[in-house]
């Protein structure tokens, strides 16, 4: 059993959480102009990363809030937990407050989901 650190509730069993897929997938700007192929790719195509992967989780049994998590898909090590709406703390993505890893868990921002 993995322990995930919910930004609101602290460490809880992974069974209390639900997976929300890859994080930071931007909603297309002009959906009317998209072909069916592009739309299908936006809906269904996701990275299948070996290593650090930014993903969304919701603490469904607890506070019912979403957050982002950077997880190593090989070792399952949780490398960062950071609020919805902030950028990925991976190389190339900017950390929410220039901090890494997530011993500095941030309180979640309201409403924003990305």
């Amino acid at each position, binding site marked *: 059993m993995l322990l995930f650190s919910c930004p609101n509730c602290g460490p*809880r069993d992974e069974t*209390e959480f639900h997976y929300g897929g890859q994080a930071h997938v931007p909603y297309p700007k002009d959906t009317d102009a998209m072909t069916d192929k592009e739309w299908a790719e936006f809906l269904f195509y996701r990275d299948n990363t070996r290593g650090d992967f930014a993903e969304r989780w919701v603490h469904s049994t607890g506070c019912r809030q979403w957050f982002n998590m950077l997880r190593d898909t090989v070792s399952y090590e949780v490398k960062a937990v950071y609020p919805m709406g902030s950028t990925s703390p991976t190389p190339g993505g900017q950390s929410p407050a220039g901090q890494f890893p997530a011993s500095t868990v941030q309180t979640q921002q309201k409403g924003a989901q990305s």
Partner: protein
Amino acid sequence: MAETAEMANARLQGLRRSPAVHLWEKFEQESVAGSLGVTLREIPFLTMVGVRVDPASETGARIAEVVGGLPERCGEVGGPLAEGEATGTLWLGPEEFLVVGPAHGKGPDLLGRLLEALAGDAGQVVDLSANRTTFELAGHSALAVLEKSCALDLHPRAFTVGTALGTEIGSIPVVLWKLEAERFRIFPRASFADFVGRWLLDGMREFASVEVR
């Protein structure tokens, strides 16, 4: 004579069945006395009001006034709201709270006062009294019974008196509230009351027999 709303209400109150009423006899029979004792009972029909509001907003402040302060973080309980039975406001999320008060007609009109405080602003005040029922598990072995199937750290060091947390007991989502060192309130949704009731009874059973040394 025509039936008034009050008469209809009184009649309906009489018709209500709490979700675990069929287990009350078993709860009584299978509660365990003595040094390894543990008791289980259902407390029916407590008033529960679901509140969703931004606690930092003006609306949040008005609601906080009604309930004697909203809890600020996970685990905290605001209140109490009345004398006698344990009442309070449980933290369910940063903007979601569960107000637990005395049974209908036995205390202040919580729902009415909360709706008045919300005043139609952004947020929600919903009567959830029929959503969950209330179990009380108490006694020297209560903690041991819970620890069989609740993955939370229930050690008194981590789970202190007065704390309430959303969790799972026997894979069923519940809210668990520690009233005293050996007295817990468990709030399962009504449809899970039978399962959770029987599940806890099963967990209590070993304490009824003499310990093998």
